[in-house]
């Protein structure tokens, strides 16, 4: 039921949007932004009211769809199907048809496999889905006691899957939430392609972005990078439309998209370049600038509605909108935090290139840890590589043609690259999926006047580029034995055994998850000392409550932490913990030391339920807590109270 309802809301938003925007591609883009804004507002409201339940979410969605339809009918524009073979041939040149077919097949494969697998992906299992699961269990947004920074991250990327899970009545409905971004991504591609190179390049541009290998891979994992990128590109498309038409309606699209992106990831510095094309257009048109100034309160309010709620929440609870990060200008601290972004510097760059200069030619040979393979972190594909080389030429052509819109759009590449190298702590492609659009649209811009045989050949190259990227997606899945086995099981038995998959992929950790799942009753509280990959401790399908309770010091306030042995045990009992999973990850051999010392002092209270170890994932021990007296602890139905630190 989740996806039909989502499609209904999108269709109703499209009918409303096409009253204001004649072009189908722009109406589709506006519809995606409108539907997302409506959903996020509704789910935020439900969460604050403690009503994150299926019935209110379904009623809200139906009301929103009905409201859109009523508003659309109020100022109706007749539906005139204008599709004919001639128009279709113009939109989709014949050499592109194989790419369309292959894209449909690979997307079907990717989404079908991802839907059949248990929840997977590192950050997905560590916080994106556990946060969502906790919201759904409680019916509200309370994350009291949560250990780690994820509690304070922007939450649009969790609110959208929460909506799907509520519509579908099960957490599993949220598995493909990032696929919601594909229509927005495709529409943004179509708008950019059309505004840069004319109608003929709208569909090829949309297809190239939707078939970006990393986008296809991300459509099947519970991350938020694809959602962020779709909103980022929507803002870039709105800025270009504004430059071309000077219509204020695009200011509203820009504000919504900018706000939606800011509310998805806190990498605000990647959004600063988006201001460049907007400000350049306003600088060159005094009348439009005056109009924008008059509309500024409304535009800011719209952007805030779309993306400010998590920042305001952080400000309210910690006094710092970007908590846990400190924000300093020079020596002056503007906002106090517990970590500086610089401290997070992770050297994952070496997985891809040996030095920062390596990024210059990396697009022509995409590797990770020495293997030629796409993954959840990389994979921009052949069209990006070709466009990468063409970008300076496209910029020169835009400059010569005095095409200001194209010129400033193309400048988004170096402007983003500057922040990627100057500020971003983790240099990998997935954080900047959106930027792949600029080189790809450079190619479109170079071939914008191609006609006849030249255009057919360019389209054939386009098809080959898309096809090879999709082969790379299949290669990504085919390289891992556990994925191939899962696909074989899906084709043979019609389903995947979740713990067989987890065992094959996560070794000893998968064994421990399976052993706990066999014992777990609905509502049981499972505590672990280490929060990464925590979701499967809730069982498959999820039915337990998972929390991190640590005996180690943590810089975050309001966490389930107790450094004293008696207080630690009292905390476990107060939280009604039934199982305790002690995990010493292979990469942090000191982890769990304090908890182990506590357990040694409390011999008899922790009944061993198994232990496992593997070279990749370290040692895992599972314990059941012996009860002291019946009735101790809080009800598992109630949200656990945090230990103030």
């Amino acid at each position, binding site marked *: 039921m989740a996806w039909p309802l989502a499609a209904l809301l999108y269709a109703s938003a499209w009918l409303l949007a096409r009253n204001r925007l004649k072009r189908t591609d722009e109406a589709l883009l506006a519809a995606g932004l409108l539907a997302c804004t409506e959903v996020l507002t509704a789910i935020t409201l439900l969460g604050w009211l403690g009503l994150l339940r299926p019935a209110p979410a379904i009623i809200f969605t139906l009301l929103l769809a009905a409201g859109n339809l009523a508003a659309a009918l109020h100022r109706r524009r007749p539906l005139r199907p204008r599709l004919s073979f001639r128009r279709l041939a113009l939109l989709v040149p014949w050499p592109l048809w194989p790419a369309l077919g292959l894209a449909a097949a690979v997307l079907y*494969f990717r989404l079908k496999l991802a839907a059949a697998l248990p929840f997977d992906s590192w950050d997905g299992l560590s916080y994106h889905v556990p946060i969502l699961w906790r919201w759904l269990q409680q019916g509200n947004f309370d994350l009291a006691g949560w250990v780690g920074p994820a509690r304070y991250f922007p939450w649009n990327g969790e609110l959208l899957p929460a909506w799907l899970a509520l519509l579908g009545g099960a957490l599993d409905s949220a598995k493909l939430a990032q696929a919601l971004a594909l229509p927005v991504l495709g529409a943004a591609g179509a708008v950019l392609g*059309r*505004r*840069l*190179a*004319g109608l003929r390049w709208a569909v090829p541009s949309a297809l190239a972005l939707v078939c970006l290998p990393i986008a296809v891979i991300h459509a099947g994992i519970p991350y938020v990078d694809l959602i962020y990128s779709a909103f980022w590109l929507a803002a870039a498309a709105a800025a270009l439309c504004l*430059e*071309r*038409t*000077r219509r204020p309606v695009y200011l509203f699209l820009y504000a919504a998209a900018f706000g939606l992106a800011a509310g998805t990831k806190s990498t605000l510095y990647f959004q600063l370049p988006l201001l460049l094309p907007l400000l350049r257009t306003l600088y060159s048109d005094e009348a439009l600038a005056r109009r924008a100034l008059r509309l500024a309160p409304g535009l800011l309010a719209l952007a805030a509605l779309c993306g400010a709620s998590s920042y305001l929440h952080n400000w309210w609870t910690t006094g710092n909108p970007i908590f846990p990060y400190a924000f300093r200008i020079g020596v002056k601290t503007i906002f106090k935090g517990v970590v500086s972004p610089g401290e997070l510097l992770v050297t994952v760059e070496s997985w891809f290139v040996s030095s920062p200069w390596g990024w210059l030619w990396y697009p*022509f*040979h*995409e590797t990770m840890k020495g293997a*030629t*393979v796409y993954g959840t972190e990389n994979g921009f594909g*052949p069209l990006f*590589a*070709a466009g990468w*080389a*063409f970008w300076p*030429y496209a910029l020169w052509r835009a400059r*010569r*043609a*005095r*095409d*200001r*819109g*194209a010129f400033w759009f193309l400048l988004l590449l170096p402007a983003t690259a500057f922040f990627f190298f100057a500020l971003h702590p983790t240099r990998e492609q997935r954080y900047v999926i959106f930027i792949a659009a600029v080189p790809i649209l450079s*190619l479109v811009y*170079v*071939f*914008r*006047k*191609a006609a006849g045989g*030249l255009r057919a*050949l*360019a389209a054939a*190259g386009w098809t*080959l*580029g898309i096809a*090879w990227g999709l*082969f*790379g997606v*299949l*290669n*990504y*899945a*085919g*390289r891992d034995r556990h994925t*191939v086995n899962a*696909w074989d099981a899906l084709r043979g038995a019609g389903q995947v055994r979740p713990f067989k998959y987890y065992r094959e992929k996560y070794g000893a950790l998968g064994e421990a998850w399976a052993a706990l799942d066999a014992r777990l009753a609905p509502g049981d509280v499972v505590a672990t000392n280490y929060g990464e990959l925590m979701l499967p401790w809730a069982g498959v399908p999820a039915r337990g409550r998972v929390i991190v309770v640590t005996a180690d010091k943590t810089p975050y306030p309001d966490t389930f932490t107790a450094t004293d042995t008696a207080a630690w045990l009292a905390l476990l009992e107060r939280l009604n913990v039934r199982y305790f999973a002690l995990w010493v990850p292979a990469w942090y051999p000191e982890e769990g030391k304090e908890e182990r010392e506590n357990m040694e002092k409390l011999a008899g209270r922790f009944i061993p339920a198994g232990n496992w170890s593997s070279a990749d994932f370290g040692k895992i021990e599972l314990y059941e807590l012996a009860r002291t007296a019946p009735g101790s602890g809080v009800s598992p139905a109630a949200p656990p109270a945090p230990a103030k630190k």
Partner: protein
Amino acid sequence: MPTETNNKPTAGRAGARRREWAALLVFFALLAVYFWNHASFLQGMREFF
């Protein structure tokens, strides 16, 4: 006035055509380099067939 694509005519259509054909050749050459470097993709995807 702003236009949809701002495709202003540049010096000589014949010159422009030559540039477009040259760009197309470079495009195919770059694709070929990429395919060559990523030929192993065909190996991995065979697992599914």
